[in-house]
């Protein structure tokens, strides 16, 4: 290799130089979301080179990465560690397709495990929309721009060997770079790292669903009644339709009441960017961009700041952004009467998700609000016991449904404040009863006995075991 270039012509050569052996751990990030081409490309190459029994540690596994199923079947991949798994690969795992259980962590727990030697990475493959020949890399620019590269930072920094894969090589130096040259061993330039259409959506739309809108309004009423909505307020919400509606309604309130917030955190969409531009917040701390509006903003606005996953949510850091969060809006596939939340599996037990940042944000936020309709296609959202515990009930404060708001009994003062403010507060058991009155009592599907996945909480303890589905 030349002194002023780490560029290696072929991926195969880069792999050969990395010292990768059978049974080792490789990592990927998921900032290219359902448009990613790098994991498939790398695993395909590793398979062709005859590798076996590798551990794949990827911050998420999306449906577009379903070729990993073949690599599991053929023995190239022996273990998977991730924070989120789409339904396609999830179904394969739930049916018992993999010998070793998948290990699920959270967006904060994953870099912590990497840094503390729990999941040491032998080779990190870092897909980069733009990179220079020494390995400085960013997601903010390039034809495959994805915005923040927050989830890749700990991998690149801590891995024994780091390979940057880019489809936009620029002259040295790339100054603004989340991935920095001092951590990078090799750079491979390819034609395309993925499909831009699948990487970020053009726009994320606020829901038209009337129930979603009602829940969004109620959510904002809850935030107001909590007393947290004043100057210095900080906020995080997701990318779903109801979350975006809540962001819009919150913006209207903050502008009308001239409230100057401190920061918005996320998982960032255009709705959050709108709030920044309207002056609702002084800054955005961004670990992942969901749409083109967020990508453009992180590129052009110095107040829209890229942060690493460690800074975002690592529980073993001296502090992280979720620790200072006032209010957060999150979703759920199920929630039980102890307020435990499931975001890993559907009601039949099939894996179709994962914590992502859910359990981190719930643990950090002063006010954690779960927004979910009372029933989804005849299935009650509230159950006796969730199919999988993703986020423990002690970190969840409020459940907002279209038929009422339930407050964790441990937050009696909050409950009183909400009731006084006119919010329709009901007991969570009554919500469950109301749901079952509509749907009839659901039969619980029988579960298999084999553990197909472990749910590891941000403190590295296993809080649940996902069983196979019959």
């Amino acid at each position, binding site marked *: 290799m030349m002194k002023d270039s780490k560029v290696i012509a072929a991926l195969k050569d880069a792999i050969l130089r990395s010292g990768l052996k059978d049974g080792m751990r490789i990592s990927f990030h998921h900032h290219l979301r359902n448009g990613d081409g790098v994991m498939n490309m790398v695993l395909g190459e590793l398979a062709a080179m005859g590798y076996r029994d590798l551990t794949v540690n990827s911050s998420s596994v999306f449906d577009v990465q379903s070729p990993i199923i073949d690599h599991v079947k053929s023995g190239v991949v022996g273990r998977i560690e991730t924070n989120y798994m789409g339904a396609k690969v999830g179904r394969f795992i739930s049916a018992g397709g993999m010998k070793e259980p998948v290990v699920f962590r959270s967006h904060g727990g994953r870099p912590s495990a990497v840094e503390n030697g729990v999941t040491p990475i032998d080779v990190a493959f870092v897909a980069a929309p733009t990179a220079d020949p020494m390995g400085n890399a960013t997601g903010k620019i390039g034809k495959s721009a994805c915005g923040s590269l927050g989830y890749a930072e700990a991998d690149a920094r801590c891995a024994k060997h780091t390979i940057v894969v880019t489809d936009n090589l620029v002259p040295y130096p790339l100054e603004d770079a989340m991935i920095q040259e001092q951590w990078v061993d090799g750079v491979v330039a390819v034609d395309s790292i993925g499909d831009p259409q699948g990487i970020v959506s053009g726009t994320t739309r606020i829901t038209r669903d009337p*129930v979603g809108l*009602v829940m969004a309004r109620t959510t904002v009423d809850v935030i107001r009644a909590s007393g947290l909505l004043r100057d210095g307020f900080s906020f995080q919400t997701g990318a779903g339709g109801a979350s975006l509606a809540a962001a819009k309604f919150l913006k209207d309130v903050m502008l009308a009441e001239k409230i100057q917030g401190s920061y918005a955190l996320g998982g960032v969409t255009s709705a959050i960017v709108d709030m920044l531009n309207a002056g609702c917040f002084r800054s955005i701390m961004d670990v992942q961009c969901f749409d083109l509006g967020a990508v453009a903003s992180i590129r052009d606005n110095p107040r829209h700041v890229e942060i690493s996953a460690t800074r975002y949510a690592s529980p073993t850091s001296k502090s992280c952004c979720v620790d200072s969060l006032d209010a957060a809006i999150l979703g759920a596939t199920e929630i039980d009467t102890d307020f435990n939340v499931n975001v890993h599996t559907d009601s039949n037990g099939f894996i179709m998700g994962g914590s992502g940042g859910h359990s981190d944000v719930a643990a950090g936020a002063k006010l954690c609000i779960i927004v979910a309709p009372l029933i989804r296609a005849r299935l009650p959202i509230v159950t006796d016991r969730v199919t999988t515990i993703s986020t423990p009930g002690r970190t969840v404060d409020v459940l907002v449904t279209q*038929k009422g708001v339930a407050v964790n009994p441990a937050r009696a003062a909050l409950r009183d404040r909400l009731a006084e403010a*006119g919010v329709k507060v009901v007991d969570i058991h009554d919500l469950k009863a109301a749901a079952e009155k*509509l749907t009839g009592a659901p039969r619980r599907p029988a579960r298999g006995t084999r553990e197909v996945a472990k749910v590891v909480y941000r403190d590295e303890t296993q809080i649940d075991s996902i069983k196979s589905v019959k």
Partner: protein
Amino acid sequence: MRRSMLFLPGNTPNIIVNGDALGADNVILDLEDAVAPDQKDAARILVRSAIKALGFKNVELTVRINSLDTPYWQADLDEIVPLRPDLIMPTKVGGAEDVLTLDACMAEVEKKSGLPAGTVKLIPLIETARGLENAYAVASASPRVAALFLGAEDLTADLHCPRTKEGAEIFYARSRMISAARAAGVDVYDTPFTDVNDDEGAVKDARFARSMGFSGKAVISPRHVRAVNEAFSPTQKEIDSAREVLAAIRQAKEQGRGAISLHGKMIDKPIVVRAEQTIAMAEAIAKGGSK
């Protein structure tokens, strides 16, 4: 309390199930324009089944039936009246004779189902020029008539003019409806604002309707429910004056005074009644939490 009346298509299970959670004071399950001719039977059965199972106890329930010039209206009444919705909304009502026809049919159905005659009320939809001219006659045709409801989309077609957001073309219609309804002693509801994406326009239109004297307003998009509710809720100023009036009445009673005046004006019975209604509505809103 009937500030907002929200239309829901009668053949869409997903929407009906959540109908009472959308914040509207009154929900209108629609068997008419929202349902294709070949699905009238399906909608009728679905609405009947839904009302029976779900109850709709925490909202006021209206069912809009097909007009008298269709083959469906009688089956609509036969199927729905026994379930005791609060209101039936007949469409294209042209005159008092239409009300009497409906009244007689409903009385028969009530009798067959063991309900006292007159249990289910009527809220005729006025959407033709003839209906508008006969508004007073319609409103006073029967004790069953609880209110009049204005439908400007079909009306403007009948008037041969375009329907606009500003609404100058329906100014007379609105005034006429209000005066006819009040003269007959019934409530009156304004036509819905139809641009679902114009939230500001919806607020403006709702406030205008309130200022003209409507009791409340139709809504076709759940997005506008809150705006309509707010427009038709008493303002703090109105609540404060109402309290003042009632306090003055109490004081006068205690002091044994007959004629009562406040701020130099005589307080007569209608003012007291309005004050009591305002306070009652304010309390209902505070209790129900709907904003």
